């Protein structure tokens, strides 16, 4: 027991003290924050489309208001001459609307330097269509305000469970996606870390020195638990950073945009409020402990298998690739099921995917944000948790048998049949 603790300590400390750990732990949140913030920065920068419009039909004057990133300016000029000079006058494009018959629309022409951006085409067509539709309605004698009255706009408010909890499936979708994806990353990244650690011990021939002091099982479990500690620490730090950003930066950010964008004041305040509401709609006290459980359970389930594979690899790195494939495959299947489950959390595929331990850590995390016991009944959750625990005890047992023989085996390429024999060999 004491020895396994010494091993855990070493595995944990050598990894945590590495520069690469500190760098990735601090840089990853910055990277994610940048991913969220940067697109906004780029959109609000001044590469807006300035569109000159030559309207020969006379239907559109004053009906093309500025949109986000698109400014329309009507000019009174001849197309033939203006299309040569519009760029010198600071326009990015020229829209030519010819004289037209409302019932038989001709092609509208857009002159630009390069290809027309997809989004610009979309919003421009929509804008033009609605003007034409209004004109046609007028022509047909339909009162536009009446039509507006007839149009219906329905919003479903979803009250889930007996407590009639207000929920948002959009929020559940996003949280489910993020949680499931995180578990997927954890399984792969930390599983690989375990495998590389075992390979290092085997190829550097440390294993043989070690097993004359400790049992192979202690060596394997020490590594698995030590690396689990690394993962947990990383998550604690990230959660800390997130909470910090939430409490410090979000109000700051809100305040900033309010001042800068005067008119959008109410908009951004509303946005912050919406986020707060969305966060409140998730039952964090269920989600977080379960996330921790599936994080650890899934990790233990796969880490043992990765350790076993590491023990089978010889110097040849190609070995590692072909041997890891059978283990990475179910993880990839899990993420595919997860993508389905997050849209349709009660389909049989999602339910069974969240119970079978090979896929349950990833798939279950996609379902839980939809609500326990509403979407995920207690029996499913219980069955899933029990089978995950049984699952990792099973994989650890199998892996220990393979590992014990594998780490001391050199030079020979092992076949699956042999590995099978090791598993069923009595100790």
């Amino acid at each position, binding site marked *: 027991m004491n*020895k396994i603790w*010494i*091993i855990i300590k*070493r595995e944990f400390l*050598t990894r945590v003290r590495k520069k690469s750990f500190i760098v990735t732990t601090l840089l990853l949140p910055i990277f994610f924050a940048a991913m969220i913030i940067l697109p906004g920065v780029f959109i609000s920068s001044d590469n807006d489309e300035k569109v000159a419009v030559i309207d020969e039909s006379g239907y559109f004057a004053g009906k093309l208001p500025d949109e986000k990133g698109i400014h329309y300016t009507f000019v009174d000029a001849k197309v033939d001459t203006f299309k040569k000079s519009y760029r010198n006058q600071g326009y990015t494009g020229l829209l030519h609307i010819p004289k037209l018959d409302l019932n038989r629309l001709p092609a509208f022409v857009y002159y630009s330097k390069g290809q027309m951006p997809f989004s610009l085409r979309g919003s421009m067509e929509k804008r033009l269509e609605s003007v034409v539709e209004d004109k046609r309605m007028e022509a047909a004698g339909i009162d536009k305000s009446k039509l507006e009255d007839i149009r219906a706009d329905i919003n479903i408010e979803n009250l889930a469970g007996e407590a009639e909890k207000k929920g948002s499936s959009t929020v559940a979708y996003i949280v489910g996606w993020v949680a499931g994806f995180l578990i997927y990353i954890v399984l792969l990244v930390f599983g690989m870390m375990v495998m590389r650690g075992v390979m*290092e*011990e085997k190829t*550097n*021939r*440390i*294993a*043989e*020195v*070690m*097993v*004359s*002091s*400790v049992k192979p099982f202690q060596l394997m479990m020490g590594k698995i638990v030590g690396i689990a500690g690394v993962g947990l620490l990383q998550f604690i730090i990230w959660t800390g950073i997130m909470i910090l950003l939430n409490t410090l930066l979000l109000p700051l950010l809100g305040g900033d945009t309010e001042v800068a964008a005067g008119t959008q004041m109410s908009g951004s305040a509303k946005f912050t409020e919406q986020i707060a509401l969305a966060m409140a709609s998730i039952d964090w006290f269920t989600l977080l402990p379960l996330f921790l459980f599936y994080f650890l359970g899934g990790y233990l389930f796969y880490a043992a298998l990765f350790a076993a594979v590491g023990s089978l690899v010889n110097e040849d790195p190609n070995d590692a690739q072909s041997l890891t494939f059978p283990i990475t495959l179910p993880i990839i299947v899990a993420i595919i099921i997860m993508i389905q489950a997050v849209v349709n959390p009660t389909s049989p595929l999602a339910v069974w995917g969240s119970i079978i331990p090979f896929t349950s850590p990833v798939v279950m995390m996609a379902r839980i944000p939809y609500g326990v016991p509403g979407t995920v009944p207690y029996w499913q959750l219980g069955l899933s948790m029990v089978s995950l625990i049984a699952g990792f005890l099973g994989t650890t047992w199998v892996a220990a048998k393979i590992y014990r023989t594998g780490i*001391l085996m*050199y030079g020979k390429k092992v076949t699956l049949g042999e590995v099978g*024999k090791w598993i069923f060999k009595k*100790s």
Partner: protein
Amino acid sequence: MNVLELQHLKKYYATHKAVDDISFSIPKGSIFGLLGPNGAGKTTLLRMITGIFYPDAGEILFDGRPFDPRNDIQYIGYMPEERGLYKKMKVGEQAMYLAQLKGLSTQEARQKIDYWFNRFDITSWSNKKIEELSKGMQQKVQFISTIMHQPKLLILDEPFSGLDPINSQLIQDEIFQLAKSGTTIIFSTHRMEQVEEICDHIVLVNKGKKVLDGPVKQIRQDFKHHLYRIGLDEMPNPAQMATYHFTIVKNHEKGFTVKINEHSSTNDILAHFINQGIQINYFEEILPTIHEVFIQQVKTTDMEAVAN
């Protein structure tokens, strides 16, 4: 008293018998050579003695009691032939780690590390990473971490490979010192001249079976061919050499290698030359080297195996 006794030890693999009914015992404080060609079963044997493998049959007695790997492992130091250290770890930390795994407390380990690092003059490397050291230096660190916990039984598999003569001598001296202070040492190697130099007692295994077992001196006596070398001042003429006491095996520049005939004694040989009035410079018995015994025995057992 015997520190280690192996009784009818067997370990079979699917395709071959790695260790097939081997028994021997090792007295306390002796330096014991375990010899054998590649694939003879030495490593498997050592792995059973270190508790890494369980024997399929037979028994191991450690210090007179049945071997209990869980507890007895801390009294054993094992330096495998294929050895390694964590490349990215610092020398001092590595030694501390291995010492703790052998059951030493941090304090004890600290003391031992200071003592041995001083003795091997490597204190200044303590904060270097293993990967920065030369192979020979790594070997020293490895040796220290094998003996730090004062094992009763020290198992060294090819301990001198990769060492320069000076460091080889250093470790050899250390081995003698440890044996003198009561540590029993099992020494496994292919280098036969080292065996003669270091070991008191050897066991030779081939194809999973014990071929030979006994004190080094005894074995050389047992396998001798009754050859003697005699050095002379001047070579006698062939007519002077007619005798029934010995036959000449080989002529040297000034002397002969002779094989003594049955019922004759060494004095008869000497008397023969003295009577001829030839000056004798030296006279010595030629004993087979362990190397010769080894090769001969391995060949014989291989041939028997083929015959069977």
